[in-house]
């Protein structure tokens, strides 16, 4: 059994169109469309074609190496993996809780990461579509084109990202792939000079982030027919929230809302994620399909990331972002906003929130304290969940008496959105491509829908030995000679 447009009947009689690779996303993916003679879409799939396998090769390595090794999953949001792994391994050294200094430095690092990643996605990857139009000339539809036509927008985008990268460098030691978080705490505090450097620009980042929220909001206000309808599908919303229901991207408990906005599950401790989430594998993608176990794969899927988080929380605990959240909620007129392009608006609200959190944290004297490490009774298992820029990121490890990792499970943000992205692709294919002569501009509509989720495809493909793979040997006439299947 499969979803509508997931698998066509008589596939071998249909014409195949591939978008390969999907551009301006992290990692490698492709979209395949199967069309009949009249050009009607019969099948649409987002395939993730790269294979990584971190879950397997982290096994047998010492636990203290993990936060540094797993961040190599990604060059865009390594901090998320770095911190999720460190959080998961805090119990292994008995650091329950970690010190106030360690938590605040980790938070600073994380919100710096949110800020730089969201800026990168909005300005560098998506603004060409949003500012020029989905079918604008492909030669212009890139960041260089944006810099030429909207130099101030491009400049702010670059400098916002740079600021986020500076926060990461100061807290982790390097802009990409640092070592700041260690099981039990952090390995460095801020110096007064570090803090002064960041404070000098912090207010400007808040102002620019607010401008970016307004830019995204205007897109919906001025072209509601497109921005509120493009690729529209409804789904459940899943994320961490703080104990009091506030948005919290570093820690909290898990909450699920249904498509109408009602809370279905709440106060799920992070350590219990495995009782609620199962993952399905499909033969045509390296990326798994998570779902809520009690609801099953056809009803239990959901979306994660900014669009889910902004609506899953009860409030945002910084004033400017909260004002923007309320405007966003009002735009839904009593219903959750499900439009994929609203991800951009929600993402910019989070960027503003991150800038405000950074500004507030920089006033905290704990950042300068040397009280960085905690320890206590050691445990052999830990789960670390964090809201990465792209959504809920789950790291789960077990460690043997010899200090080597014996089990590793990663459910990466983009993986949660697998079904959601496929739904968006199918909606767009149905609405814009069906029965039409396909052009590059029309096919870019598919990519625009995928890009809204800001997927990181290289992050999301780590299972090993569970993937059902089929190998077919065909003779020169195309007849099947032999077929081998594994893992199904």
């Amino acid at each position, binding site marked *: 059994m499969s979803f509508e447009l997931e698998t066509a009947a008589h596939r071998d009689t249909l014409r195949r169109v591939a978008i390969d690779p999907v551009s301006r996303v992290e990692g490698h993916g492709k979209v395949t469309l199967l069309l009949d003679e009249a050009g009607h879409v019969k099948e649409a799939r987002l395939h993730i074609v790269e294979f990584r396998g971190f879950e397997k090769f982290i096994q047998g*390595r*010492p636990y203290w*190496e993990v936060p540094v090794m797993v961040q190599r999953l990604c060059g865009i949001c390594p901090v998320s993996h770095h911190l999720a792994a460190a959080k998961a391994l805090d119990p292994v050294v008995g650091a329950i809780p970690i010190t106030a200094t360690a938590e605040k430095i980790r938070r600073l690092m994380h919100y710096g990461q949110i800020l730089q990643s969201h800026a990168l996605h909005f300005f560098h990857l998506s603004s060409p579509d949003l500012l020029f139009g989905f079918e604008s000339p492909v030669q212009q539809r890139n960041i260089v084109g944006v810099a030429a036509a909207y130099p101030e927008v491009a400049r702010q985008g670059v400098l916002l990202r740079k600021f986020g990268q500076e926060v990461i460098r100061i807290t982790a030691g390097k802009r990409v792939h640092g070592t700041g978080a*260690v099981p039990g705490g952090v390995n460095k505090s801020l110096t007064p000079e570090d803090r002064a450097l960041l404070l000098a620009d912090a207010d400007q980042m808040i102002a620019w982030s607010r401008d970016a929220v307004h830019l995204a909001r205007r897109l919906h206000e001025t072209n509601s027919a497109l921005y509120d309808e493009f690729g529209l599908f409804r789904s459940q919303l899943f994320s961490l929230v703080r104990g009091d229901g506030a948005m919290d991207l570093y820690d909290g408990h898990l909450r699920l809302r249904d498509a109408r906005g009602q809370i279905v599950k709440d106060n799920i401790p992070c350590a219990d994620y495995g009782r609620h989430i199962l993952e399905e594998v499909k033969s045509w993608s390296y990326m798994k399909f998570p779902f809520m176990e009690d609801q099953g794969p056809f009803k239990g899927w959901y979306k994660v990331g900014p669009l889910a988080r902004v609506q899953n929380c009860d409030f945002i605990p910084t004033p400017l972002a909260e004002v923007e959240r309320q405007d966003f909620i009002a735009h839904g007129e009593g219903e959750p906003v499900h439009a994929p392009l609203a991800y951009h608006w929600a993402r910019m609200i989070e960027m503003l929130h991150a800038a405000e959190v950074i500004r507030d944290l920089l006033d905290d004297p704990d950042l300068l304290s040397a009280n960085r490490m905690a320890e206590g009774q050691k445990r052999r298992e830990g789960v670390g969940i964090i809201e990465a820029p792209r959504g809920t990121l789950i790291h789960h490890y077990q460690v043997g008496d010899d200090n080597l990792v014996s089990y590793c499970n990663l459910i990466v943000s983009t993986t949660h959105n697998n079904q959601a992205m496929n739904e968006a692709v199918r909606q767009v294919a149905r609405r814009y491509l069906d029965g039409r002569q396909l052009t590059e501009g029309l096919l870019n509509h598919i990519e625009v829908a995928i890009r809204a989720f800001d997927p990181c495809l290289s992050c999301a493909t780590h299972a090993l030995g569970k993937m059902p793979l089929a190998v077919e040997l065909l003779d020169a006439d195309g007849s099947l000679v032999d077929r081998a299947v594994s893992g199904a």
Partner: protein
Amino acid sequence: MSGKQFLLDGQPVSFEEGQSILEAARKAGHYIPSLCWHKDFPAHGSCKLCVVKAAGRHVSACATPAREGWEVESNTPEMNGERRGLLQMLFVEGNHFCPSCEKSGNCELQALGYEYEMLTPRFRHFYPERPVDASHPDILLDFNRCIFCELCVRASRDVDGKSVFALTGRGIDKHLVVNAESGRLADTDFSKDDLAAHICPVGVILHKGPGFAVPIGERSYDGASIREKKLREEEAS
């Protein structure tokens, strides 16, 4: 000073009778690289990083006594190119994954890779199968990174009096082993306080726990190259 001298890259270097080229050079403030050489042990001559051209012949500077009037070439494009080749061979023979190695920033092999501008592996990786030994409560052995310098072998045998380590196998199959019937470090009398537990120039013999406790910027070779560090150490000794 005996007043004897040789020329190192055209510079006069004084030496005492019996002193190696490497020792005399470092004493005089000239850096010749090494991995297996240690001032407290006899010359080993196995890593060959200290290769110099003396009187027209390639010799190991650590194992060759200096001679009056010799003209020695060391810091030349030719010799440094050969050193780079040796480093590339050491890297591909093991599994040196610097990005997640806790010795990164403190590792002499990595520091020499930077010093001699090693930008590619050049040769095909061997990807040897070398399981880690985590059996000891205090020490982890990650054999993936062994460069066969035998510093741990010598320290354990000659100073600690335990002979915990040895090299076995021949040629390309040579590898480090633990001297216990089980082959496990836990089944030896190895201690974290042994000299052998503190002498590894790469990331094989690791103390469990500290991991990445030292932040980027404060590690041995973050602020100074291995050339500068070794010469400073020589000056201080």
